[in-house]
C-alpha cells in the first residue's frame, strides 16, 4: 500500500468556464487557469518547481508547445526544475496527482503545478470530433474496422449492465437529470437549463439504448491545481485538502477484451483506496464519480459501495444524489452537463472535489464536507482510478 496518506495536500485550484472560445488560443485557457490556481493558493509563483501539463488532443502542434515548456515561459516561472507531460487520457489528472505526490513525498519536488487546456469545442469540426473519437484509443487492428466508436462503446456496457441488473432506461436518464441539477448551480458548466427524464428519453437515438442527451459533448476548457507537502500546505492555508487514499487498476486496451463491461475494475481500485484512507463509503460526504456517459457513473457509484448492484438507478431518480441529497454525486454536473474537454473531464472533477472540500463551491456547496471520493478512467474505460481526499487525516 502507498505510504502517501496525509503526506501531500492541494493548496490551489483554477478553472475557466467550459464553453466555446473560437477567438482565444488554447494557451490562454492554460494560463488563466494556472494564474487562478496560484492566486487561490496565495503562494509566490517562484515556489513552483515542477510543471506537469497534460495533453491537448485538438492540435499536435499546440500539444508540442505544452511539452516544450510554453506554460513555464508564459507564466514567467523562474524556478522550474522540470516540465513534463503526464498523459493517460481521462485518467491524466489522477496519474499526475499520484506522480506529483510521490515526487513531493520523496523530496524530488516541492510545489507542483498541474495544468490542462484543450479546444475540442471550437478547434475541431463536429464530424472531425466524431472521427477523432472513433479512432483515439480504439484498436485499429480489432475494432475500428467494425465501425466502433465511443457512443457504441458506452452502449455495449449499458446493454450488458441492463441485461444483468434489470435497470431501466429511465433510471439511466435520471443520472443525466441528477448531474444537471448540480450544473444549474455551477457557473462553469455549459448546460445549465433544467432537464427532465422525458427530454432525455425524447432525444435522438445514437447507439441503442444510448440517446443524444445521455452523451457528453465536447467543449473548450482549462483547469489547474497545485499540490505541495502537507507540512507546507498547513503554513499556506488553514484548509489544506489532503490526499488520503488512492487505488487503481488497468483492465484492458482493446475494449472487447475487457472481462466485465458491466463492472470494470472499480471494486478492486476502491478497496485499495478505502483501505489506505482508513474510512468506508458511509463516511464519504461527496462522491465525484466520472461520467462521460451515465452507465459509467452508475457502475462506479455501485461498485464503490454507494448502492447495491442494480439499485443505484433508484437513488438517482429519488434525489439521493441531488443537491441536498444524502450522497451528493458529481457536483460540477460532470461531462454530461459541465461539458467534456478531453483529458479535462476528470481534471474538472478533481478540481471540483477539492473545491467542495475547501468550502468554495458556492450555491452547490455540500455542507460540512470532510471526505470526498473522486474517480477517473481513460481511453475506452481501460482503467479504474479512485482518489480519496479529506480536510482531516483519519
Amino acid at each position, binding site marked *: 500500500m502507498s505510504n502517501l496518506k496525509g503526506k501531500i495536500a492541494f493548496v490551489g485550484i483554477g478553472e475557466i468556464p467550459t464553453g466555446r472560445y473560437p477567438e482565444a488560443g488554447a494557451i490562454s485557457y492554460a494560463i488563466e487557469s494556472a494564474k487562478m490556481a496560484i492566486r487561490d493558493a496565495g503562494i509566490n509563483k517562484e515556489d513552483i518547481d515542477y510543471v506537469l501539463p497534460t495533453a491537448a488532443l485538438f492540435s499536435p502542434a499546440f500539444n508540442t508547445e505544452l511539452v516544450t515548456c510554453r506554460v513555464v515561459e508564459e507564466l514567467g516561472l523562474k524556478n522550474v526544475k522540470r516540465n513534463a507531460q503526464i498523459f493517460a487520457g481521462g485518467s491524466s489528472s489522477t496519474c499526475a496527482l499520484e506522480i506529483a505526490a510521490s515526487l513531493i513525498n520523496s523530496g524530488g519536488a516541492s510545489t507542483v503545478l498541474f495544468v490542462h487546456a484543450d479546444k475540442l469545442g471550437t478547434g475541431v469540426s463536429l464530424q472531425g470530433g466524431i472521427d477523432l473519437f472513433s479512432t483515439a484509443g480504439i484498436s485499429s487492428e480489432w475494432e475500428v474496422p467494425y*465501425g466502433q*466508436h465511443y457512443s*457504441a462503446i458506452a452502449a455495449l456496457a449499458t446493454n450488458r449492465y441492463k441485461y444483468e441488473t434489470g435497470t431501466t432506461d429511465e433510471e439511466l436518464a435520471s443520472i443525466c437529470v441528477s448531474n444537471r441539477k448540480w450544473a444549474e448551480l455551477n457557473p462553469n458548466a455549459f448546460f445549465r437549463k433544467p432537464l427532465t427524464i422525458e427530454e432525455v428519453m425524447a432525444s435522438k437515438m*445514437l447507439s441503442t439504448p444510448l440517446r443524444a442527451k445521455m452523451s457528453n459533448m465536447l467543449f473548450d476548457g482549462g483547469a489547474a491545481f497545485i499540490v505541495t507537502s502537507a507540512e507546507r500546505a498547513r503554513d499556506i492555508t488553514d484548509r489544506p485538502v489532503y490526499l488520503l487514499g488512492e487505488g487503481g487498476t488497468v483492465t484492458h486496451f482493446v475494449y472487447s477484451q475487457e472481462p466485465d463491461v458491466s463492472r470494470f475494475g472499480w471494486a478492486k481500485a476502491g478497496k485499495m483506496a478505502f483501505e489506505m484512507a482508513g474510512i468506508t463509503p458511509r463516511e464519504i460526504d461527496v462522491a465525484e464519480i466520472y461520467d462521460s456517459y451515465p452507465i459509467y457513473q452508475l457502475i462506479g457509484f455501485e461498485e464503490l459501495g454507494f448502492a447495491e448492484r442494480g439499485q443505484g438507478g433508484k437513488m438517482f431518480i429519488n434525489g439521493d444524489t441531488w443537491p441536498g441529497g444524502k450522497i451528493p454525486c458529481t457536483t460540477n454536473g460532470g461531462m454530461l452537463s459541465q461539458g467534456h474537454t478531453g483529458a479535462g473531464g476528470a481534471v474538472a472533477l478533481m478540481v471540483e472535489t477539492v473545491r467542495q472540500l475547501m468550502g468554495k463551491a458556492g450555491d452547490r456547496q455540500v455542507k460540512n464536507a470532510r471526505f470526498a471520493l473522486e474517480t477517473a478512467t481513460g481511453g475506452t474505460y481501460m482503467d479504474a482510478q479512485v482518489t480519496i481526499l479529506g480536510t482531516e487525516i483519519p
Partner: protein
Amino acid sequence: MDKPKKPSPVVNPWVKPFWEAAREGRLVYQRCRSCGTNIFYPRIACISCFSDDLEWVQSSGKGTVYSYTVVESNCPSAFVDDMPYVIAIVKLQEKGVQMLSNIVGCDPVDVRCDMPVEVVFEKLNDDITLPKFRPVALK
C-alpha cells in the same frame, strides 16, 4: 466531401496467418504449446507464460453475444451508409476467446445478449475478409 473508404485493419507481421485464414473462411486463434493458454487477439508471445511457441487453432466459429448495440446515428463517416448496423462483443465457445464484430443476417432489433451466433465471412477488400456473426438458426 467524399465519403472515406472503410478502414482496413492494420496488419502486423505476426497477425498475417489470422487474416490469411479469414480469407479462406476459417476463424483461428493462437494456443500456447508450453502452457495451453488460448490467446486472442494474436500476440507475439503467450500472455500467460511469455513462450513464443504458439500454434494456430481453428475456432468452432460458434459463440454467444456478450453485448451489442444498434448504431442508428453519429457513427464514423465511413459507416454512414451501413446504419443501422449492429456492433457486438462475441464470446466464442473456446475459453478466453472474445472479439468485437458485427451481427449480420438478421433484423438488428432481434439481437439479444447471450444469443447464440456463428461466424460468417465478409470480404472488405482484396487483402481483408472480416469475420462477422449471424444468429444460429433455431432448430
